[in-house]
């Protein structure tokens, strides 16, 4: 796994979301989800290119179902963009790089 993407868990989620000055993208994913696998390398690229402008993270819904439930995630991949600890944008479904960057508001 890449050094550009942080793996979140139920234990670390709130702290990371609230402590970050830059926007945080959380990719809700699971092992069995084909489209999640397709966007993983795209998110890697975005993380590498954007540097400190955004923090890209991922959360395994199988291991951390409470967080998925808290945000009403019913479909994966879903990407939530947090700004100042609040959900600012929600992107559902796999998409290409340019479209993701636009929908994240980066």
């Amino acid at each position, binding site marked *: 796994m890449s050094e550009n993407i942080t793996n979140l868990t139920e234990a670390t989620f709130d702290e990371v979301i609230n402590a970050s000055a830059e926007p945080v993208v959380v990719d809700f994913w699971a092992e*069995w989800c*084909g*489209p999640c696998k397709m*966007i993983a390398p795209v998110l890697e690229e975005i993380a590498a290119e954007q540097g400190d402008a955004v923090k890209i993270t991922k959360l395994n819904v199988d291991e951390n179902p409470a967080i998925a439930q808290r945000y009403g*995630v*019913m*479909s994966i991949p879903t990407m939530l963009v947090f700004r100042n600890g609040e959900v600012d944008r929600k992107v559902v479904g796999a998409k290409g790089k340019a479209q993701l960057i636009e929908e994240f508001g980066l």
Partner: protein
Amino acid sequence: MSDSKIHDVLILGSGPAGLTAAIYTARASLDPLVLEGEPSSTGDQPGGQLMLTTEVENFPGFPNGIMGPELMIGFREQALRFGADVRTEKATRVDFTSRPFRVWVGDPAAPDPTYLAHSIIVSTGATALMLDLPNEQRLLGHGVSTCATCDGFFFREHDIAVVGGGDSALEEATFLTKFARSVTIIVRRDELRASKIMQDRALANPKINILWNTVVTDVIGDQTVEKLVTQNTQTGETSELIATGLFVAIGHRPNTSLFAGQLDLKDNGYLITHAPSTRTSIPGVFACGDVQDDTYRQAITAAGSGCAAAIDAERWLEANHESE
């Protein structure tokens, strides 16, 4: 963005057809360039429709079945192993009127194409059809799903519905009973199109209930799906069905809009190929997989036609002395 090289073979799409064509043309030293598409959750994506499926039980060589995404990752690795250049890009425009053929990625209005190629293999596949209801789109990801494998997990102990009467609908319904409390299959006619084995399995499942002669006319729910409005196709009577999830498996349309006006299409939008070959209406452009198959539409037939397209392209390049 553009590269000045003229590629021997450019493959559009990366399902079983495109990647089999890539394996064969790579092994024939034709250095195929594969534009695998961009991620999406509708069937039109790298890896094709199998990326959205569950267990594939009928692909020969996997006696215990294999998950669709896992199978496609294997196809891709095999193509890479022989040197195929696979790029996560999607063609936005093609020009097959002169040779070398021209393909654009990104801005379709750009004056110069992104890629040039002596031959093209079209394997852009098909995309799952939706019901085309306004509320269906609004509630996508909030109870409406295009991917049972991805989202079944979120419907534990829910009462959900699957629309469609073919193999994919029944396969999804059967898969979803692992999570859901009940699955209602909504079928437009009074019979199923699905294969006998899938029908037997679904009908024997105590969690599955079938609603015959019925169509969905609306999806109700503020934040998430709460119920469906259905209509009986015989009596015209409408009723409501309590369901907090909706999975749609009513068939596919071929991804051919890029080629309209250049390659001959059937009335139903599928590309015309000249059997027994994969030739299209333009010499040097070949097509394989679901984009040209409205009959079989199986992973194995797609892979078979991908192999045929690779061999057709190789022979055509040889005969036209265009291979470098």
